[in-house]
């Protein structure tokens, strides 16, 4: 079925999003910086490598266990820079407010943004506000852009990835997505799960301090682990093998996913990173990650292989294996 209108699935980070970018935006603007479709563009200005990124935040509800749209708006952009190997420096904020939004709520969002900036060590240096009529927005939409500097010798891109490399995740997955779902209208359920929203730049810095050979990094937000790793498999033209029993999924996330009929591999994170590193340095990198609060549960979850090119394969805990595909659109709860 050909889509002649925008569907919600076009914003899910899955195949529909990819299709929209590849058929609509890429042909119009294609250039050497945009075409790799990384989380950030890397441009060279007077001999300095600058990472540049932008992201828009539309979260409903705007406050959720563990954070708010203000936290993710700063952390998300900081993380998009950090996973490019950059030290984030400056960010901008464009805020679209809906008429009638309580001032007290805006104050909370701004305060969360301020605290997030301080925690990450970035400055918000320029911004813009607009107000739309009631009903034309969802309280608040935030766009942030950011820039950071990449040190010499760091080369993070999918083409650096080699068979044998190990895949690391910095901690348990699925918390942000489930935390949001637990407070969404019509689906309220009680859970102790909080969003994992956090800046990852200090963790990345620790990792880069012990190894300049980190091949690739991503923060698996929308679409979860599976979308990020599928993108890697496709862009690197290598195979990826994951070990189900090594992937850290909190009990409460597992339980919520069981009830809702969802797969934790596709649930969003806001404070996680995936890193591909040379096998011989993997243990050392995991060790240093575990000393940072954002990486205390870091572990190796799989490896890059010279087989099933372009696919992510999961070795199940009972000894079978299956393809972990990218989602078509939103993950849909099952009937029974």
């Amino acid at each position, binding site marked *: 079925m050909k889509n002649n209108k925008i569907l919600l699935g076009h914003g899910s980070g899955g195949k529909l999003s990819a299709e929209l970018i590849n058929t609509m935006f890429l042909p119009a603007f294609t250039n050497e910086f945009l075409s790799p479709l990384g989380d950030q563009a890397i441009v060279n200005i007077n001999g300095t490598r600058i990472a540049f990124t932008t992201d828009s935040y539309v979260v409903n509800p705007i406050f959720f266990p563990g954070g708010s749209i203000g936290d993710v708006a700063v952390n998300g952009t900081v993380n998009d820079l950090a996973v490019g190997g950059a030290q984030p420096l400056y960010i901008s904020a464009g805020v679209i407010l809906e008429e009638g939004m309580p001032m007290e709520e805006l104050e909370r969002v701004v305060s969360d943004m301020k605290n997030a900036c301080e925690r990450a060590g970035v400055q918000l240096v320029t911004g813009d506000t607009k107000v739309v009529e009631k009903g034309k927005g969802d309280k608040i939409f935030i766009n942030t852009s950011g820039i950071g500097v990449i040190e010499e010798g760091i080369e993070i891109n999918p083409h650096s990835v080699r068979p044998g490399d190990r895949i690391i995740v910095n901690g348990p997955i699925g918390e942000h997505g489930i935390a949001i779902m637990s407070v969404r209208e*019509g689906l309220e359920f009680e859970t102790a799960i909080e969003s994992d929203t956090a800046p990852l730049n200090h963790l990345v810095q620790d990792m880069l301090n012990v190894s300049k050979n980190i091949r690739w990094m991503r923060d698996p937000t929308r679409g979860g682990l599976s979308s990020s790793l599928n993108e890697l498999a496709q862009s690197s033209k290598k195979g990826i093998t994951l070990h189900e029993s090594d992937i850290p999924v909190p009990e409460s996330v597992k339980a919520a996913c069981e009830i809702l009929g969802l797969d934790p591999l596709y649930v969003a994170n806001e404070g996680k990173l995936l890193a591909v590193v040379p096998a011989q340095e993997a243990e050392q990198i995991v060790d240093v990650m575990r000393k940072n609060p954002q990486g205390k549960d870091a572990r190796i979850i799989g490896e890059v292989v010279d087989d099933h090119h372009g696919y992510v394969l999961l070795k199940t805990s*009972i000894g079978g294996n299956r*393809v972990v595909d990218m989602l*078509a659109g939103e993950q849909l709860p*099952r009937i029974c």
Partner: protein
Amino acid sequence: MKYIDEYRDADLIKKQVQKIHEITTKKWAVMEVCGGQTHTIVKTGIDQLLPEEITLIHGPGCPVCVTPLEMIDKALEIASRPDVIFTSFGDMLRVPGSHKDLFSVKADGGNVRIVYSPLDAVKLAQKHPDKKVVFFAVGFETTAPANAMAFWQAKQLGLKNFSILVSHVLVPPAMEAVLDSPFNSVQGFVAAGHVCAVMGYEEYEPMAKKYKVPMVVTGFEPLDLLQGIYMLIKQLEEGRYEVENQYTRAVKREGNIPAKETIYKVFEIGDRAWRGIGVVPNSGYRLKEEFSAYDAEKVFSDIANIQSIESELCISGLVLQGVKKPHECPAFGKECTPMTPLGATMVSSEGACAAYYNYGRYRTSVG
């Protein structure tokens, strides 16, 4: 996770697999009836652990997949109306009708909402007295009690703006249709545990006897399925054809009596069309005549004549009957993917085609 992890224990699974290998001496073709079971099998790779003598045939037990196209077109038509809030379980939203799906209706301005419980649809009706709230009651016997209860509550509350679009189907007639098919190769059934949790399994006993086909009521975790398959193969090897119950922690022979009473209070049995299979006599529930004021097909009676057009490429009917495997379809993974599904078996995560596409595509492409 307690009470789940125990049924996914790798060591116990290995032992159960070993036991199946030990007793299997001949070729057997068995069908797991329920889409949820297919999902577990392909997701965990159980099929790769079994002896090669055993062929698993994926059954018609996916409610999304067998909902007839005409019914989906009706749902799309109703959902498009400005005075309607249309509520549905999530995986119905991407099921293609003749021309579009519920997601595109939503994008066109239709008020389409995912609910997790039919009772949420009743709440919406209370909250929006100016709108007609319609619930798409799809499913097998498993979802029937909750759907019946939703209707019953709406009636008790005196809600005039709530109706249900009923497309309920029943498992035993579908199993008989499989057995009666001239292409049938099924020698035993892994019967659907959740359906039996509601209905019990008395009604399966005459069928097992008549067709001389063993059945084992089975759960949905990997260990459940392996134990169910073991019990079934054991019966086949010993020449028995009984109805046995593997899923004793959830299923009683007589089923859940209050749930059944709720169903019979609200629904009556009637003929039902199955997508890809055709009309199967006495194979579904419909709302009792006395409740027709709550029947969306009657409330929106002006939608009766819809021309539904099936894709010519799609062989989902043969897949649902276990005659073909998904990857034997020429359109599989080409014209037909979860992004561009031609048939419902590619939409629902319980559908055999989607399960093969999502989890087994690489395996099937390399043999």
